[in-house]
Structure formats: C-alpha cells, structure tokens
C-alpha cells in the first residue's frame, strides 16, 4: 500500500514537473552576499536583565512548565537568581535552557504590548530528575550571539529570500520578506525597508524565489498568499497582473518557486495536499496546472524540500517528500519520457536508516559530491553518486543533531547552518559544530533561514522579525 502510494506521489509530482516544463531550482538558503552585522550591544551583565525565561526539554520534547506558555517566566528581582520548577516526572534526559533579557515595547502591536529580547543564555547538560528530590542546576549565563534586525522588529514575518542582482556589483543584493499584509524589501545591509501593501482581504503565507518573464535579468520574489501568488517587483510594486489567468478558486499557496529558461518561465507551487505548475512565455495565456490532487494520500505540503544538481552537466532533481525521497534524472525531460512506467523506471527512490531504524528525510542540501540529508533523527551526508544506502551508524550522524528533527538546512562550502526544533547547529570551515538555542534570539518560531556563505551570517525570520547570528562570533 505504502509502496503504491509512493509511486502515485512520484507519478503525480513528476507529471507536475513535466507539465511545468522543467525542474526548478529553489533558494536553498545559501548565498554569498557579504553581510556584516554590527557588534552585539549586550552589556553581558546578568544584573542588567529583568526577565528570565526557563525552557525545559526532555530529550527533544519541550516540556510545558509555564501557566500559559511552554516556558516559565520570572522577574529576576523577585526570583533572586533562583527558580524552582516542578513537579515534573522523574527520569533522565532533562535539559534546561535559561534565557535572560528584557521586555521591549512592541512597535507593531503598540499599547502596552512587549517583546522579549534575550541578552544572555545558558544551557545545562542533560540530567535526571530524581523522585522526591530537588535537582539543583547552577548555570553561568553568557552573552547571546543573536542580534536582531531593527527595521522589522516585532513583525510577524513569513519567510526570507535573497536576490543577488549581479555578481560583480558589490552590495547589489536585497532581501525580501512579508508580513501578513505587506511585502517587504530590505536593503542589503538590513538598514531600511520599502513596503508594498497586499490587496485587501489577502494575506501572505510564505515567500518563494520566483521569476517573471518581464524581468529577464534577476529573480523575482514570489509572495505566497491566501489567494495565490503575487510576484514582488520590489519597492512598492506587486505584479497583480500575474494572476490574470489563474484557475478559478485558486487555493492558498504554501510554497512556490520558478526560474527562466530561454526567456520562458517555469514555475511550481504547493497547496494543502497538492501540487501545481505554471508556464509563461508572455505570448499567450499562462498555462496553469493546478489539478494535481494528492489529498487522498497526504495533507499539507507534499514536498518538504528539493534541490537541483546541474554540476554534472545534466539536471538531476532530488526530492524530499512526505512519503519518501527520490532522485529524478534529466533524461525524463531530454528523452521525453511521458509514460507512467517510463517515469517510474527513470526515477529512483532512496531511503536512509540510522542504526537500522528508518529515518524520514525532510531536508536536502548539495555540496560538491555530497548530498546532505536532514532527517527526523539528525543530519547525515552521503555521496550523491551512491544512494543505495546501507544503514548508517549513529557515529556517522552529525553528533550535535542526533535525535533532532531538522526543520531547515543551509549547507555552504564554508559554513553550515542546521535548524532543528530547539537549536541552531552551526559550523565554520569544516570545524566542530556548535549548538545555539534558538530561544536565545527573538525568533522562536522560524519561518525562513538564510546563510551568507561568504561571511557566516545567518538570518532567521519568524514571528517577531529577524534574528541574526554570526557563526564566527561578534
């Protein structure tokens, strides 16, 4: 049953891609743009902080210990630098993340609303809670490596993409994001914004790296909305005409991407339980393919990640889907393979097991000959030329990621940034990985990740703006 379901998913997906015309490269969150962050402004003194947030993990689960939040909040002056948590079930595998900071006025909500801005943090080792006893954990907070982007502070952002407009022009790149009601362009140094209001009654859901046939030189960010796709021309301009030939009842778009080839646009998008494609050459009407319904099999986004490999002279697509990962070779296109049997024979599903237990592949990244697989049990790298994988021992999993679910991943030639449920895992120049709790930054519910592979700067967009961190330190 599962095998047939996987085949059906593969058929539908590949058919969608064929209808869309080609594989689509997507923004994999890695770029070389040269971001420099200002020095952290933290005083680094615990005595300057007013609020403490305490998060309690049990293995990878966040244990709720607050009255209305998963974390516990205390005013430091009243707590006297000591907090009691419990009762909690006895047992091993507990870990404390302590974050100290201050509440700042919420510039978006206004009134008395505030946003917690972390300044210091500490992470305990793993420990056991013993029945009937109070387990003491003494922590030494250090300055948080996370900063924030002031011009979007407090905004509930739906993702982040970067457009490099010319490799020879210094600083000629911009970032694009969106709040519910606006598309937002950020200057290359993250110092200023220009905004375009979305049409009434339409809300942004996410960002995709798209294109327009009228913009042949650069990529164009696509704002995925509750009513379809809005290409963002930057500044105050949205390309509303792009939707002229929409199918009726266009569903909310969860994910999208596109590129130009020979002046023609090839795009794709995901909706709840389905896939679609679009082809545009600006001569006739756009050809929308929006009837690939997979809701019988799955809900949400069918594809969690895809990467395109053109380094070997051809174009291979690697897909991570809810029901399996597979590689689709270019010959599906070049040999005009358009039968179900032909597509199935050409594509190859692959699986990964860690210590003989199957792992679900959720994220992909390509670096030279290696294919990095982000799974629900950690990150492993395999040779892309050999995907007939034996079980991988835990010792070959990125140690810091073992047992953690990978939410997003940006792997560059120089830096790695792996976003898991509670930690950002980073490394520089092939060195050891470091764990940074995302709770030490202002964004605790990430919607987008960007890594500048030339400087090691990581940007995380989310519910309160953009958190930034320099992997090499301030």
């Amino acid at each position: 049953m599962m095998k047939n379901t996987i085949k059906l998913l593969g058929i539908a997906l590949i058919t969608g891609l064929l209808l869309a015309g080609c594989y689509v490269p997507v923004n994999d969150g890695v770029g070389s743009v040269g971001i420099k962050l200002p020095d952290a402004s933290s005083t680094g003194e615990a005595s300057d902080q007013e609020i403490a947030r305490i998060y309690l993990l049990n293995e990878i689960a966040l244990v709720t210990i607050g009255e209305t939040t998963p974390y516990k909040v205390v005013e430091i002056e009243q707590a006297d630098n000591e907090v009691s948590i419990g009762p909690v079930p006895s047992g091993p595998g507990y870990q404390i993340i302590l974050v100290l900071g201050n509440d700042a006025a919420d510039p978006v909500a206004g009134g008395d609303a505030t946003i917690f801005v972390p300044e210091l943090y500490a992470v305990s080792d793993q420990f056991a809670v013993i029945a009937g006893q109070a387990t003491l954990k003494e922590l030494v907070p250090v300055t948080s490596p996370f900063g924030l982007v002031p011009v979007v502070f407090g905004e509930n952002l739906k993702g982040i993409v970067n457009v490099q407009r010319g490799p020879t022009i210094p600083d000629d790149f911009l970032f694009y994001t969106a709040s519910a009601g606006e598309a937002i362009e950020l200057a290359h140094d993250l110092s200023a914004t220009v905004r375009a209001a979305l049409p009434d009654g339409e809300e942004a859901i996410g960002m995709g790296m798209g294109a327009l046939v009228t913009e042949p030189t650069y990529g164009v960010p696509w704002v995925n909305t509750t009513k379809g796709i809005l290409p963002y021309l930057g500044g105050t301009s949205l390309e509303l005409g792009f939707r002229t030939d929409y199918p009726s009842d266009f569903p909310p778009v969860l994910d999208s991407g596109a590129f130009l080839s020979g002046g023609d646009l090839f795009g794709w998008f995901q909706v709840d339980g389905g896939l679609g494609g679009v082809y545009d050459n600006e001569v006739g009407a756009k050809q929308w393919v929006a009837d690939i319904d997979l809701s019988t099999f799955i809900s949400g986004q069918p594809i969690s990640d895809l990467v395109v490999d053109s380094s070997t002279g051809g174009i291979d697509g690697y897909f991570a889907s809810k029901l399996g990962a597979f590689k689709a070779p270019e010959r599906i296109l070049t040999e005009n393979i358009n039968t179900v049997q032909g597509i199935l024979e050409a594509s190859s599903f692959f699986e990964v097991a860690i210590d003989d237990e199957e792992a679900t592949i959720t994220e992909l990244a390509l670096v030279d000959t290696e294919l990095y697989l982000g799974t629900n049990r950690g990150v492993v790298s395999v040779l892309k030329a050999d995907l007939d994988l034996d079980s991988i021992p835990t010792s070959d999993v990125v140690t810091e990621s073992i047992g953690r679910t990978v939410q997003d991943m940006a792997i560059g030639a120089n830096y790695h940034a792996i976003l898991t449920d509670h930690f950002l895992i980073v490394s520089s120049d092939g060195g050891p990985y470091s764990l940074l709790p995302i709770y030490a930054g202002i964004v605790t519910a990430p919607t987008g990740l960007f890594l500048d592979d030339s400087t090691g700067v990581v940007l995380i967009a989310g519910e309160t703006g953009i958190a930034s961190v320099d992997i090499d330190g301030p």
Partner: protein
Amino acid sequence: MKKTTIMLLLLLAVVASPLFAQDAMIREVSGKVEYRVGSGGWQTATVGRQLALNATISTGFGASAIIRIGEAANGSVLEISQLTRLTLEELIEREGTLSTNVFVPVGRVRATVSTAEGRSADFRVRGPLSTAAVRGTGFETNGWQLSVTEGVVEFANALGEGRNINPGQISVTTGGAPSNPADELNQLADIGDGRGPDDFDDGPRSSGYITVKW
C-alpha cells in the same frame, strides 16, 4: 556421538515445547497515546486495540495508558506514565510460563504481574541501564529507578550486577550496581532547601523538582 545425541534431544525438547503468543491489549488511554509496529507509522492508540509483538507505545506529556498482557481475568497490567516509550519485545507462553519482555528506553511504567493458578510469570522490564525481573509481583520503574509494591524484584544493571528489592523498597542505578535500598538516596531525603519532598504538595509520587540557579 553421545554429545550429539544429547544436543539433538535438547533441541527436540525445545522444539516440542508448545509456544503460544500472549495477547496484549490497550485497556485505557488518556491524552495523546500512539503506537506503531516495528518501524511502521505512528497511529492513535485506542481502547481495545490488540498490540502485536514489537509494537511500541508512546505517551505524550500528561498522557497515560494501561496495557493488559495475557488472560483477560488474570493477566498482568502495565500502567504507562506520560513521556514514556515502551516496546513489547517478547510475549510468549511456554509450558505454563508467561514470558514477557518490555523495553522502556525512556519514561516510567508500573507493572502488576499476575497469572492464573498453576501458571508462572517471567516478567522483565528492560531499560537502557537496568532490567527488572519479577515472578508474580508489583513494581514501578523508569528504567533507572525501581520501587517495589509487592513481592520481590531482581533488579540488575546492564552488566547483570543485581540485587533483590523487597516490597516498600526503592533502588537506583545509573549504570553501576543497583543501590542498596537502605541508602540515603532512596529514602526520599529532604535536601534541606525548603523544596524537599516534605514540601511537595502535589504531583505524582515519583515526580521531582528542579532548582535553577544562576
């Protein structure tokens, strides 16, 4: 020749012994409880669900489940606490002995082992650090701590170093030999910070507190 004959006889004896699978069934669930068989997908656990060998039960925060193993009237009962994973590794009845092995990598279970008259039970709960083996008794363990409510439990670490724990006693192992029930660690000692067990007004008996200081 004689050795071979003996070995063949032993082999025949083992093969000739009738083996029956025991039933395992979910009797109660509360909160988010899921199960899966082998590496299959997780499914919502419901009352009355029969569990196969190699089934794993997972309870979420605040959730719990009760499993009955063996006969409906005289079976053993496993009470699975929140944040627990438990795998049924062996469910066999052989020559009147009900053999049950469960693996608890994380979490806490309470076992009440019973059998019909004329039968015996070989009931083992294995954790990463320890194994508790019993024959007709009641106990509670989270894989590294054991408290016995009835009967005698053989409590051993992964190296097989063990000791018998009597009713009303608690023993702990963090990898080494299980502690002596007379040790202070097992006496629910108050560490004198005002947050000791005598200060605990709520929470389950096996809960603890964490004091975070910076």
